């Protein structure tokens, strides 16, 4: 179906850039389904290997006083004594119907936990990612321009140092300095204790520190990548040609070198997303934000399988989608990349 287009004028070519998008999306879905199936199976197997008895977990302290018959009745009601494949099929069937199960640590449906909290995590990750991208492109390009200069060396030293700092440690240090010693910004939470609603200005003030900490902890990887990529492309022929034509340095740097360097950057953002999510979990814990991270930790402490499985699977779906989006963006930005071959 993909007949080779004859080399016609530029408008035709431009139109064909995303020609294969449908095929790619379909192919990616074909891969994503086995990936999700394998992930869910692996998690289910781990959950089944867990030494926790869901009936006793449900009963809590009452487990000591209830009779063995009651516990057995509970197990029979839930079907936890059924063979594993049967249990797995039932669980997946429920997932597909939108029933994510009952969170044993929060005592509410998993869907409502996700609905109430996913937004805050997305906000945190989204703003931090935007900040990281802008800052790393700017700093990395400047460092690459004078490679080996003092700014380059300082930036790289700082980047390597920050890379080895646990994000929660940075968070605690920032709280100690800016919130407790200087008292500029709140130490945690999403709103003031006295606030009744979520006033945007109040929330923004509470998000300054968490977003900055998450951005700082993720930035080194991006900064170093941009710096290396721009330094590489500064030696390309077309950049040399632009210089030879006498274009001003700034135009060459941002208009020519940076543009070519940014393309591979796009796909790498997608692959780095899982790291960002992990960082968000830790940042939310440090700053007591009501996002998915804190819930995940709580669920882990209580061995809450339905909630943990749902958050992990949901994050996987988001990451896979983001990877697809960056690939499509890559194809849209780079005319050399053809999706349909």
């Amino acid at each position: 179906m993909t007949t080779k287009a004859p080399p016609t004028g530029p408008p035709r070519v431009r139109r064909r850039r995303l020609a294969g998008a449908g095929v790619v999306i379909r192919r990616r879905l074909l891969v994503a389904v086995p990936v999700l199936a394998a992930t869910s199976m692996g998690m289910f197997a781990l959950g089944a290997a867990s030494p926790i008895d869901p009936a006793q977990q449900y009963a809590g302290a009452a487990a000591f006083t209830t009779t063995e018959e009651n516990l057995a009745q509970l197990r029979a009601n839930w079907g936890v004594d059924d063979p594993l494949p049967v249990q797995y099929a039932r669980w997946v069937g429920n997932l597909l119907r939108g029933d994510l199960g009952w969170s044993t640590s929060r005592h509410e449906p998993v869907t409502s936990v996700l609905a109430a909290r996913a937004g805050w995590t997305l906000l945190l990750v989204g703003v931090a990612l935007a900040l990281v991208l802008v800052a790393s492109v700017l700093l990395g390009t400047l460092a690459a321009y004078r490679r080996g200069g003092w700014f380059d060396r300082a930036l790289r030293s700082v980047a390597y140092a920050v890379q080895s700092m646990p994000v929660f440690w940075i968070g605690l240090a920032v709280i100690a300095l800016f919130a407790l010693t200087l008292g500029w910004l709140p130490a945690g939470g999403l709103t003031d204790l006295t606030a009744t609603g979520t006033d945007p200005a109040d929330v923004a003030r509470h998000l300054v520190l968490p977003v900055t900490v998450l951005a700082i902890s993720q930035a080194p990887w991006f900064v170093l990548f941009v710096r290396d990529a721009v330094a590489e492309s500064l030696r390309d022929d077309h950049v040399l040609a632009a210089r030879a034509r006498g274009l001003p340095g700034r135009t060459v740097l941002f208009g020519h070198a940076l543009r070519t360097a940014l393309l591979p950057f796009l796909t790498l953002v997608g692959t780095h997303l899982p790291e960002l999510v992990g960082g968000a979990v830790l940042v939310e814990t440090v700053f007591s934000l009501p996002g998915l991270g804190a819930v995940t930790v709580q669920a882990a402490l209580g061995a809450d399988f339905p909630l943990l499985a749902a958050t992990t699977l949901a994050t996987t779906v988001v990451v896979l989608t983001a990877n697809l989006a960056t690939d499509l963006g890559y194809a849209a930005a780079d005319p050399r990349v053809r999706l349909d071959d």
Partner: protein
Amino acid sequence: MTDPAPAPATTPAPPSAATPTTTMPAPAPATRPARRRPSRRLSTLLRGGRPGVVLAAGVLTAAVVACLLAPLLWPLDQSAVDLARTRLAPSPDHLAGTDDLGRDVALRSLYGLRVSLLVGAVAALVATVIGGLVGAVAGTVGGRVDRALMRVVDTIAALPHLLLGIFIVAMLRPSLGAVVASIALTHWLSTARIVRSELLSLRSRPFIDAAVSGGAGRARVLTRHLLPHVLPRLALATTLMVPHAVWHETALSFLGLGLPPHLASIGNMINDGQRSLLTGAWWASIVPGLALVTVTLALAALTGRWRDRLDPRVRAELQL
């Protein structure tokens, strides 16, 4: 000076117009031509190194010695609770102050470093064994098995590995074994990829063909010809993994999902210190973290240098 390589005086200078294949001089038997293979010995690393590398080696040595000798150097008991001296600021008596139970923070940081580094190293070894086996099977068997295994690797790589680690610990219940399993099961991917690609590129090399046509069996080729080439790579991958394993353990312990409280790892200490932090005693959390950052940074700088020596092509890539 466009001379290709500083050849020893005994080898005749090649005629200038000859094609490369005919200029191959007979190897001088007595004096072997100086091989430009980068040396991997620590002393060479240090001698040619930048001051940062020497500093890193010094810091690492000091930390390891202090960790090993801590029980001899400080007669204090690291777990001794002294409720009369809680949250003392740093002073000559307690170099890094005391925590909310009156324990000496500096001493506990040393013990914590011990636990963290040990757990990290063990977990990195386990991860290397898993990754090495998977990579070896994929690289030697090839075909459908290779594709299936690599698909598994790609799948796990797409998951947020901290979430996966939390999930594993949650299901196995927090304990030493669960933490090691959590680190190993999320960190073996890169090793598997390295071993596989190394084996794939080695398989088509002439010396393997020579060994096979010389009658070497599959096992002999694997152990005598392939393994020696893969081992340095594997050792490097393991060392590079140790800081990551330590960070993973620290994160789990900080969340309260890691090592049991009686094993004072750095993560546990930072978690404990959070209570003191809110009352202004910042040292209980910040000092242990600082110790960890210093040591892992030194470790990462050294291994990064080692990798540069082993494979100059990836120098442009990121360290760590």
